[in-house]
């Protein structure tokens, strides 16, 4: 594993993603998702909204890191809030 040059932050990052996917799988088995219309312009399933949330979170982080003089933790906080909003009302 040493060739993968793991660090604690990236390990936490990937564990979180893996946990999310596992959680979504369990949720899907317990109560299957139904495609629905929220504030997004397209009908989405739960997995679609998770994907959109993760992708936009990546872009939020890139914008903050590249072009804004604020800490990356703001980006993380904003992404979490955005993800919750998206999952609930998206």
């Amino acid at each position, binding site marked *: 594993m040493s060739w*993968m040059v793991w660090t604690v932050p990236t390990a936490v990052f990937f564990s979180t993603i893996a946990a999310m996917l596992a959680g979504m799988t369990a949720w899907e088995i317990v109560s299957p998702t139904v495609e629905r219309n929220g504030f997004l312009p397209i009908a989405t399933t739960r997995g679609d909204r998770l*994907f959109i949330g993760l992708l936009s979170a990546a872009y939020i982080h890139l914008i903050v890191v590249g072009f804004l003089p604020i800490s990356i933790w703001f980006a993380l906080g904003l992404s979490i809030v955005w993800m919750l909003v998206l999952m609930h009302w998206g």
Partner: protein
Amino acid sequence: MNKVRNNHAWWLILPMLLLVAFSAIIPLMTVVNYSVQDVFDPYTRFFTGTEWFQVMLNDPALQAALLRQFAFSLTILAIEVPLGIGIALIMPKQGWQASAVLILVTLPLLIPWNVVGSIWQIFTRGDIGLMGWGLRELGYGYNITRSPADAWATIVLMDVWHWTPLIALLCYSGLRAIPEAYYQAARIDRASKWAVFRFIQLPKLTNVLVIGILLRFMHSFMIYAEPFVLTGGGPGSSTTFLSQSLTTMAIGQQDLGPSAAFSLIYFLIILLVSWVFYTAIMHRQKDPTTQGER
């Protein structure tokens, strides 16, 4: 709505998942790890956090390469898609002519990328190349090593020559799949050729066109060997696209951290554009057989 009750067949994709894990996910994880560190060897590395990302996002050369890349991909799509549909429409439908034309149209697809680059490199030379020599004799001072416009036009032409056949083949198969009854109905209505194309052929081609546009976009966005062989990214940096900047950085300069950060940005752009393309086209036509995407 026909619900599948027995989901055990899903286990059959397990080998594929394992394969993908080794070929894609683990390497991608490694790239992520590299992007937040300055790695000299596995025992000598320093955590740099988001520094590489900041440097890469603010690098003027990379920003220019990104804009150039988008300009290139959109240009070739704007040419190849209408041209490919047009070729598919005039290709013979049966008999030996159909087979002969199919083979002729497919030929450029069989040529490896760097060979395509070499072919065009020779083709465009002023002294021995047919195109370079011909244009020069016609009085145009054609030179891809001097004029950025010539270099651009040549790379676009090369890509159109190499990849329009893919769009044409996809459309051809899509056209063959339209039942004859549609055309009979159109004849009864005395529909014009344009109406047949607009309301029968084009809608039926949407699915293959989605695949074609996606493939061509991703492919052209990652183009490397052809411009590298043909122009080497020049003149100046006028045809240096993203993957070539990346290679120079990762292989040429061994800057693994910055290149890893850059690859991830590159990856996110491709992921976003492909997703937007796919979702936009799939949701516009709301076909029940194409739902259930991810």
